[in-house]
């Protein structure tokens, strides 16, 4: 099925836009805005609003009709975990019965990132939104190193505690600082010949599985992640490996 945006009639293609142009407000700017949206492939473009943001900048709200849709059949959904995840008890049960040892997990907010709320949500006892964190899982040994941990230190620690998985949180993404930092992490692991030794996971509000895999991680986790997702992912991968 080809999905096209929907306003009030199937396949009408309605899309709302807003953007700024480095152009003073006026007829030229409005026409430029209109033509620009047309150039992006939209029809019936209507610049419904414009105002001046300063002498050289102006703001536009526009609506247009998309002429292209997207074939749903061709879409690969690459989420780290599928629709069904283990509950805390199920995950622990599987570890106990099928892995037969504790799973060791090390987590941190790395680089200059100090947004610990996300990694805490996954790891701390109290968890998040009524989902307990990994510290509460009896079959997991979870170490949360906190904020602004250098990649080097994180790897050292993971080696020391013989971690199964390393969990990294990256929330600040401005100027792609997270990509630089995550790339450096993978390169360090590889340089030290440790890449295969750990499952490496990254999460954060602007992180997706796709990006994570591209950067060389095993999985990526965005908004709405709970400890269950992480536990499911780790347990399944460890079972695979050890099978």
């Amino acid at each position: 099925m080809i999905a096209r945006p929907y306003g009030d009639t199937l396949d009408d293609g309605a899309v709302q836009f807003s953007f700024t142009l480095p152009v003073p407000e006026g007829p030229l700017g409005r026409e430029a805005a209109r033509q620009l949206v047309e150039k992006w492939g939209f029809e019936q473009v209507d610049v419904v609003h414009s105002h001046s943001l300063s002498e050289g900048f102006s703001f536009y709200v526009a609506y247009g009709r998309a002429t292209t849709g997207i074939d749903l059949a061709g879409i690969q959904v690459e989420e780290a975990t599928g629709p069904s995840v283990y509950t805390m008890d199920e995950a622990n049960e599987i570890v106990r019965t099928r892995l037969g040892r504790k799973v060791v997990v090390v987590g941190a907010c790395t680089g200059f990132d100090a947004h610990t709320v996300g990694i805490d949500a996954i790891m701390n006892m109290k968890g998040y939104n009524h989902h307990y964190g990994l510290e509460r899982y009896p079959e997991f040994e979870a170490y949360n190193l906190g904020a602004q941990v250098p990649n080097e230190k994180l790897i050292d620690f993971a080696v020391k505690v013989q971690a199964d998985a390393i969990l990294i949180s990256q929330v600040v993404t401005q100027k792609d600082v997270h990509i630089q930092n995550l790339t450096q992490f993978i390169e360090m692991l590889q340089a030290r010949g440790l890449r295969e030794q750990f499952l490496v996971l990254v999460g954060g509000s602007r992180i997706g599985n796709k990006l994570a895999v591209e950067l060389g991680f095993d999985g990526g986790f965005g908004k709405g992640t709970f400890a269950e997702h992480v536990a499911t992912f780790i347990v399944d991968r460890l079972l695979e490996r050890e099978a």
Partner: protein
Amino acid sequence: MTAPVESKLGLPQDRIDQARELARRIARPVNQFIERHTTVSVERATLRLAGADGANAEGIPVPNLVVDQVRDRLEDGALLPYVNALVRTGDSVDGLNQKIAQGFRVDELPLGDRGALERKAEELVEAFATRVKANRAFRAACQERFAGRNHSPLLYVIVATGNIHEDVKQARAAAFQGADVVAVIRTTAQSLLDYVPYGATTEGFGGTFATQENFRIMREALDEEMERQERYIYLTNYASGLCMPEIAAMGAMERLDMMLNDSIYGILFRDINMYRTFVDQKFSRMINSFGGLIINTGEDNYLTTSDAVEKAHTVLASQFLNERFARDAGLPPRLMGLGHAFEMDPWLPNGFLLELAQARMAREIFPEHPLKYMPPTKHMTGNIFMGHVQDAMFNFASKASGQGIHLLGMLTEAIHTPFMMDRALALENARYVMNSMKDFASEIEFKKDGLIVRRAHQVLEETVDFLEVLDRIGLMEALEQGLFAEVKRPRDMGKGLEGIQERGPDYYNPFETYLASELGLSAN
């Protein structure tokens, strides 16, 4: 809605009483005119109540065909010839309707035994009453079953795709998103058609035709959504325009829950003849009342053309008149959704306070009425972000002043009829704001002699003055002079004038008689 309303404004009760008394006096000569007249639409509505339905090959509805046949003796009403045909032919109602659609003339049959005809007519009244009472009972049972699940005020959205099937999708989505009331907006200019189209329709502009089949389709869908959402979903349409009473009839039969229905809107905003409108509105309201439908009056419309500060008193004056005419048609206050609107200029310093004063004033003057509060429209622009904030302030004002029915503002008001996503954002906006400041109204007092209190008193005073003028010159004269909404409407002009008919001594309408007695109107 019927909890006693606390007085925060200290409005003088004697002035309120005086305004009501003036409204009574202003309405009286109009009512006298109404009693002596019928209209083509009143007669067609009566036929519909009796069961006349369907249309001929050109799309002319059966009720119109019958009324056209008997147009020259309409002073007796159109029902008797139809009943006579039923008796004479022995046909069922449906059978007769089909015949008429194929060209059969009821006016050519000589009238049979009066007693037999009247008995047949009573049977039809009975059937109608049974159906509508069942509707009322069903509505009441559902509302009982899902008590406490609707929002307060009721969150009211519109659908307006032009296609009833597309409307159904939008309405279902709206229910899913939290709406309590769905209004199917009519296609532009249906109000000027002197007939009601027949069947399911898919071609309207800025709205969908009001047809009985469309009503049925939407009702069915919303009843399903009600079960799913466990919330009664009110259905609204327009008993307005040239077919006001007929649409009321259709609504009562298909269990609509609300109708836009105003005693003077059509005159002012649709240039419908005033005599026609006055006669039509009364019968339409009797039907609405019997069907248990809440009317929504159109005072908001004054402020789409006039200034909300300058003309606030015309809104209140019109509310008093609508209240009076509604009462004279047997509507109890709990079915009077008197209209007003948040149309204050957003850049006016303290505009929100003036608005809050006016909204609260309406609440205190009409304490049992489910006031219908309309969103900003005139001052909305293509800036959807700013518009969404204007709507938030409207949501705040509505909850803070205790409104009954809240028509949701759309961030795209100045651009297009609502997209599905616009409605969802509007519902989210209202649900957030109203839940977050839920008990605000009961938490605050207004400062004595402050801006808010003074504003409300001032509007009330201006209203009484205005009603005094109307009382002096008469309502019809006032409409001719353009005292409302700045438009002048001569009494012998306007659409639908030709459809007015003085009643003869033998005028016969047992449906009207039944309704009047049910509504306790017998002695006007």
